[in-house]
């Protein structure tokens, strides 16, 4: 009766190797759907703007010029894109193994917290300090995410719930540390008043990311090159190595994976650890590239945006680069909105609408693929 019983595990592996090629008309239809739904999303945002009396053209114009219009704008976009892309790569690795990590906000915070602790403690030459900070951030993020795999693979607790809950615990760990003078709270001169938002001491310059380009009002850090490099590495690992194959097999059919000698628990917790490591690294990159300090609310939605960028990229690993760029640009664009008199919070709504607009056509594409696959293997769906 069921497709899974009627067919041997091979189809799952076949999907893992190559999704079935669809007729051109299907791709055209998906493309048209994508265009329509993105237009609808922009239309919704424009409607929201015009009912509140703003001009959509002005606002969208300001957002485009604020994200790509000048060197300053482009630098802001790329500096945002780096950490978002790192988070998205991690989210993608987990998703491929069938696990959904939504704890990136917490993993970023914990990564940055331990990163700054190391950066303030060591007194080493430039390269070594930076490497130590980034490595610590990645390891801390990985450990934080692994708490969720521990609960998943020993107690059966859904990793979605536990990663979500661990976010809020992570925020409080950071808040605790930056509010304690004996931990990481900023040293202030005698008699000065503690700032409303407590923070850590700033990192020494030895712990700053190298600068790629610099000019009046902008400083492009190297997070974008690091992130793009890791994206290429991850895409290669997923598509061309035994590890990547096992990961995708576990994600598509854990039962078939176990029968062929692959442990879903081992592969899954590895994927979750990598996911956390990349989110932690994103925290480290934010710390060493732009923030230089850790404060309450450090992750500031980078985690959610990276996660959404990964969801938008869907099944094509390298599509995560343009989708992260889109989220980075939206973030940079929101920075200039205040000058137009429009609340930058509209950008959150735009991000959500973009995700919906891209998700629906991809869903259609996956359905067509599944149907084509089932036809090819001669399994009929009830």
């Amino acid at each position, binding site marked *: 009766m069921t497709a899974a019983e009627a067919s041997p595990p091979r189809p799952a592996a076949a999907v893992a190797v190559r999704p079935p090629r669809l007729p051109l008309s299907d791709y055209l239809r998906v493309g048209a759907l994508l265009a329509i739904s993105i237009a609808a999303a922009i239309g919704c945002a424009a409607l929201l703007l015009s009912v509140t009396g703003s001009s959509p053209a002005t606002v969208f114009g300001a957002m485009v010029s604020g994200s790509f219009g000048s060197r300053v704008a482009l630098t802001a976009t790329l500096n945002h894109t780096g950490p978002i892309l790192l988070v998205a790569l991690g989210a993608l690795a987990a998703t491929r193994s069938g696990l959904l990590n939504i704890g990136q906000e917490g993993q970023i915070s914990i990564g940055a917290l331990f990163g700054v602790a190391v950066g303030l403690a060591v007194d080493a030459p430039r390269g070594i300090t930076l490497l130590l900070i980034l490595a610590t951030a990645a390891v801390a993020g990985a450990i934080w995410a692994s708490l969720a795999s521990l609960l998943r693979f020993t107690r059966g607790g859904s990793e979605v719930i536990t990663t979500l809950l661990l976010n*809020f615990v992570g925020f*409080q760990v950071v808040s605790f540390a930056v509010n304690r003078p004996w931990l990481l709270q900023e040293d202030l001169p005698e008699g000065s008043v503690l700032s409303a938002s407590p923070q850590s001491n700033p990192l020494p310059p030895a712990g700053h990311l190298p600068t790629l380009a610099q000019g009046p009002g902008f400083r492009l850090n190297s997070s974008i090159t690091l992130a793009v490099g890791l994206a290429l590495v991850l895409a290669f690992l997923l598509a061309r190595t035994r590890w990547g194959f096992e990961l995708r097999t576990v994600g598509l059919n854990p039962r078939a994976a176990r029968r062929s000698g692959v442990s879903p628990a081992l592969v899954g917790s590895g994927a979750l650890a990598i996911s956390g490591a990349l989110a932690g690294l994103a925290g480290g990159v934010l710390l060493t590239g732009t923030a230089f300090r850790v404060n309450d609310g450090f992750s500031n939605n980078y985690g959610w945006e990276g996660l959404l960028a990964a969801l938008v990229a869907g099944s094509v690993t390298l599509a995560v680069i343009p989708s992260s760029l889109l989220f980075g640009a939206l973030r940079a664009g929101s920075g200039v909105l205040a000058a137009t008199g429009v609340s930058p919070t509209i950008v959150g709504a735009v991000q959500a609408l973009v995700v919906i607009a891209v998700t629906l056509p991809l869903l259609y594409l996956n359905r067509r693929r599944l149907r084509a696959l089932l036809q090819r293997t001669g399994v009929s769906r009830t």
Partner: protein
Amino acid sequence: MIEDITLIVDSSVRIAATLLFAALGELVAERAGTLNISVEGAMLSGAFAAAYGSHATGSAYYGFGIGVAVGIGVSAIQANLSHRIRVNQFVTGLVLNLLAIGVTSFLLAEVKMAPVQFGLVRIPGLASIPIVGDALFEQRAPFFLLYAFVPLVWWVLKRSRWGLELDAVGENPAAADANGIPVDLRRRQAIYFGGLLAGVSGAYLSVGLIGAFTPNMTALRGFIAIAAVIFGGWTLWGTVGGTLLFGGAEALRVSLPALGVTITPQVLIALPYLAAIAAIALLSQRRRQPAALGQTFRRGIT
């Protein structure tokens, strides 16, 4: 001392009430196997709509109704995206939360409003009981809906056919499907019920408790409600207990410093989440989650 205790009990119950409304709805939704993280977005939208509705109509009651309707509306998007066309339910929930916070903060910045607040209602006699009297019997009007919703949810889960079918759908959707129970329909209905209560919760927060709308005013209470359901082991009384505990923790965090007690606020803020994680780690098999929680049902594919 007695006054202090009365005050803390009162504020614990007030905070617990907002959590409990949302948690009751989330409990029903989760029993049907759907993990609705858009409860936060539904609460926030409901809170905004109730505040704006009360301003536009001049009546807290109409505003409350509008808030509840918007809560159901948000849950309808969630239900139809996740259990009709089967977009991943967590993705849907995250996106709806993001959309809710973006749209409400944006509208708040763009429109001026003066929300109307519910007045205090005092039940004569009962409200004079020492310590708990004020807390339980002198509150803003929507609070008293709890006395209807808690028994209603009990009846739904324990005594109604619909509730039994929700359990079937949450524990073994394939078996439920084979018995002719429409799995996705029941899940959508459970989410609508959750949205109704999330709307009540948000509306109670804005036009009941506070009398205003502030950006992101639900401040993760939707997630605390989810934590309460998990902590309560997916049972009604466990959920009620969880919301009281978490409401108490928040009340203590606010009131203890004023009483000269030094505390670590971060521990109290993290308590609900830690308690839920501990529950996942420690709960026995009998009080486990619905077997199909968070899994999309596809007929014929296990």
